[in-house]
């Protein structure tokens, strides 16, 4: 089958100001079908604001966002039905059980075979035994897995993961990443993935966009970025060192 040449997500010259402060300053990047793009940057770099602009939760000041080759503003609901989002910062509905949450979200996303899909995801993320537990009674790791079930509920073609594994122990993160990679491959979805765990990005991302102070400061594969910053002799990606170098350089400039 011929692969689509059109990017799934195309962000061009995106600008977002909050009063005098420019949070996102002319960012451009794209995600192709089936690609996982690592979206990196220090705290306050503009990653989450960019994600909120893509989701329409924050209105951009300038630039364009095309998703599935459609203008977001004109096709919001249609586009969002084919997308999903997960962040460790936002819980599912606190006082509903895991199953009830997933059932509500499956209706919000207009999932047709929702009961079967919920059962499948609970099984994949190994939380079938927790389906009747309230979200507030779950551990961090269990909540993260329930959140990921919600993120995959509608078989999204584009998934935005904003630090989905934040504050989880390495074992849980490792399992989570394996599951995300597996489903992403099976369902051929495109993913925008942010994290402050650099090995997480090295594990999942084929391409990385690095932003600082609202601007794109580097782009490439993890190995390309490592060679760019650490020297051509680098044999393995080392995004941790790349992150520190780029962040400190950005802070000196500012």
């Amino acid at each position, binding site marked *: 089958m011929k692969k689509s040449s059109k990017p799934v997500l195309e962000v061009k010259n995106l600008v977002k100001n909050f009063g005098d402060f420019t949070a996102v300053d002319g960012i451009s990047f794209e995600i192709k079908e089936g690609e996982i793009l690592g979206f990196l940057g220090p705290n306050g770099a503009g990653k989450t604001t960019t994600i909120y602009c893509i989701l329409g939760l924050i209105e951009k000041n300038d630039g364009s966002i095309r998703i599935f080759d459609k203008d977001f503003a004109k096709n919001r609901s249609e586009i969002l039905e084919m997308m999903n989002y997960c962040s460790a910062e936002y819980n599912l509905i606190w006082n509903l059980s895991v199953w009830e949450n997933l059932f509500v*979200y499956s209706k919000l996303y207009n999932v047709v075979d929702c009961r079967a899909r919920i059962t499948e995801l609970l099984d994949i993320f190994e939380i079938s035994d927790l389906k009747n537990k309230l979200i507030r009674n779950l551990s961090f790791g269990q909540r993260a897995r329930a959140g990921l079930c919600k993120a995959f509920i509608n078989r999204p073609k584009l998934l935005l993961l904003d630090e989905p594994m934040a504050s989880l122990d390495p074992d849980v993160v490792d399992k989570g990443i394996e599951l995300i990679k597996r489903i992403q491959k099976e369902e051929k979805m495109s993913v925008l993935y942010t994290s402050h765990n650099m090995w997480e990005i090295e594990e999942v991302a084929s391409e990385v966009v690095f932003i600082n102070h609202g601007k794109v400061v580097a782009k490439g594969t993890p190995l390309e970025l490592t060679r760019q910053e650490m020297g051509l002799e680098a044999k393995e990606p080392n995004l941790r060192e790349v992150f520190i170098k780029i962040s400190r350089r950005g802070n000196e400039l500012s």
Partner: protein
Amino acid sequence: MNLVRVYAVVLRHYFLSVHQLDRLFGVFFYPTISLVLWGFISRYVQQIQSNHLAALLLGGLLLWIVFENVDTDIGLSFMWDVWEGNVVNSFASPITLFEYMFGTILVGFLKILVTIITLGIIASVFYNFNVTALGFGLALFWVNLILFGWAFGIFKLSLILRFGSRLGPLTWSLPFMLMPFSAVYYPVKILPTVFQKIAWFIPLSHVFEGMRYTLAAGKFDFGQFYMAMGLNLIYLVLSISLLIKVFGVVRRNGQLVKLR
């Protein structure tokens, strides 16, 4: 006892009160409104010699609860989404603002139907007050109460959306503030002239004046009904316009994703 640590507790409350003035509502707001309300009720009770007094008070309470529940339910549903950190997940989904509001209002409507039936049975069994004594007009009273509950609830939700969850207590306190001006337990003429002018701009006053007329004369006051309906339609249009405007503002200034 370490007084420095006691001082720390006092300081904590002081700082929180400075940031959240609603924490001081209980100091002056509720007591003042209660005093004003019961002052007017006392004045009314002293003036009248009516066999209908119990019916007037119970009828007023039953109808007031309809408005208060419809109105509060809208703000409370939204506040639950805010408290549970679920606003971002909700609006990151395909749901539109209109669908979100429609679902919220529908739930409130179903809940108030249960409340009305429950209260009607209790009032009839324990207090010998038959809500159907208000005749077919009862349904029309409810229509106006529910419409104003929606308009006022959407107005409050807009304020919470714009200024954040620190205004959450408005969900409960604002309807209470309307009560003395709404002539729930006494006629508008009991109020001072200035308050009377305010009262006629509140649809509730027309509903309760209509209720008293029906209980006394056994007839339905269509004049008051039309006035309440007209005001309700104006307020509904204004509150929906405000909500749409505010939703745009909070998407521009980033407040929508910061609601906690």
